[in-house]
């Protein structure tokens, strides 16, 4: 049952639309109490929360073995049929499992929740970060900021669909092209030990050496792969390493954009700025259950394998989930189209009648004159 009254008034504030981390919006957000603020949490009994937070090795070991076995099988099929059209479906499957599943593995192991054993999380984090072309230390701190200030303009650098949306960048990223160019630039910059002014706002100075070492290691690996292709006189090393970045990123993009696109900015309630979507088991395997995105943001210490149970625990206090990825894009695409001309527009999430009251004191930006 949906409440008749909207949970918060129509837009009543002058929107700040500069997404730069060193622009005026971050300062303004801080003045409004939106930075490193207290966020809404549904009450969950401590005993139940402990059950949900409990770490296990089994599910992630099983999923990782299956993932790498599938990758190896598809890579072998591509090699076997190399030179003929039959290699194409193998390489396309390989590219998606490599380029898109690595995104969720990077994410979950970065939170340290995939495995109970710390070194397994660290090992998967390094491998998946490389596969997904996300520099490990740089993205660890970027993602920490994303969780501190989720979709706070001028603070969160992981806003996939800004207002107005950058359509060109989104389209280029279907083939991973915009991200590939920005990653190539940042790896080159970091290999020389430089951080931009924006990066310095979220990466501590003490981590600079680590960022530099990782970037240099990546450059060595990339050069080694190119050298291997030249020595072997084969495109295969290039195809195995670089094809997934352009041919396998599209599913991660579809998942990633669906997390927050079109929803509210500058609110302190993940129910209003994040989207939970029902998905089929194949998508949930690739995405490691990040379709339960409101739940993940509200309780990031709950491992991916427990998110369906967390969803059941919180359902009474949540907006209804989108019934499918297609349904999610049926609300996202019209919203993005409207935001091209009206950046103040966003989808207003309505909370169930049974939900805990909306807390206006946590959302000063919404009530600013």
């Amino acid at each position: 049952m949906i409440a008749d009254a909207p949970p918060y008034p129509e837009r009543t504030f002058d929107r700040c639309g500069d997404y730069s981390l060193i622009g005026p919006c971050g300062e303004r957000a801080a003045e409004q109490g939106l930075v490193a603020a207290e966020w809404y949490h549904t009450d969950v009994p401590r005993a139940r929360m402990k059950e949900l937070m409990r770490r296990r090795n089994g599910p992630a070991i099983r999923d990782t073995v299956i993932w790498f076995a599938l990758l190896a099988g598809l890579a072998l099929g591509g090699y076997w049929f190399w030179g003929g059209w039959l290699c194409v479906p193998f390489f396309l499957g390989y590219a998606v499992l490599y380029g898109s599943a690595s995104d969720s593995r990077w994410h979950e192991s970065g939170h340290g929740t995939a495995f109970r054993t710390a070194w397994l999380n660290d090992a998967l984090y390094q491998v998946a970060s490389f596969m997904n072309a996300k520099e490990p230390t740089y993205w660890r701190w970027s993602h920490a900021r994303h969780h501190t200030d989720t979709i706070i303009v001028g603070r969160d650098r992981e806003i996939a669909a800004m207002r107005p949306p950058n359509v060109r960048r989104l389209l280029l990223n279907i083939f991973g092209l915009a991200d590939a160019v920005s990653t190539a630039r940042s790896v080159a910059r970091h290999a020389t030990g430089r951080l931009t002014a924006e990066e310095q706002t979220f990466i501590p100075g003490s981590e600079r050496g680590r960022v530099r070492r990782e970037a240099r290691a990546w450059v060595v690996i990339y050069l080694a792969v190119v050298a291997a292709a030249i020595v072997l006189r084969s495109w295969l090393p290039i195809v195995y390493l670089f094809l997934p970045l352009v041919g396998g990123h599209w599913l991660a993009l579809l998942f990633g954009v669906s997390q927050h696109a079109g929803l509210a900015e500058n609110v302190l309630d993940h129910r209003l700025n994040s989207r939970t979507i029902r998905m089929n088991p194949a998508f949930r395997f690739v995405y490691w259950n990040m379709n339960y995105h409101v739940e993940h943001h509200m309780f990031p210490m709950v491992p991916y394998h427990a998110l369906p149970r967390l969803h059941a625990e919180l359902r009474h206090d949540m907006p209804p989930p989108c019934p499918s990825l297609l349904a999610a894009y049926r609300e996202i695409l019209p919203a993005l189209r409207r935001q091209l001309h009206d950046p103040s527009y966003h989808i207003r999430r309505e909370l169930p009648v049974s939900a805990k009251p909306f807390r206006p004191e946590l959302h000063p930006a919404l009530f600013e004159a």
Partner: protein
Amino acid sequence: MMMSAGDEMWLEACAVDDVDTEDVLRFDHGELTFAVVRSPDGRFYATDGLCSHERAHLADGLVMGDLIECPKHNGRFNYKTGEAKRAPARISLCTYPVKVEGGKVFIGLG
């Protein structure tokens, strides 16, 4: 309740049974906040109550062996020594002496 012994002041934080083994409880005293941790072997420890990274209450986090994990960004600390063990936590926590008397847990402030 407070007790003084020499230069040390002891704050009554909770009853022994208030904290499960391998769990944590928040204890506030004035402007101070503490995390009272009970290890898997039943011993009590106390640290600063707020994560040194972004000041989330550690009592909402998870105790695993010798570690406590922050609920906000999953930074980890050794609650016995206060040492930061996992980014984004980099600054160690202060730890405090603890004693158990008469079924109550006391935190010592020097």
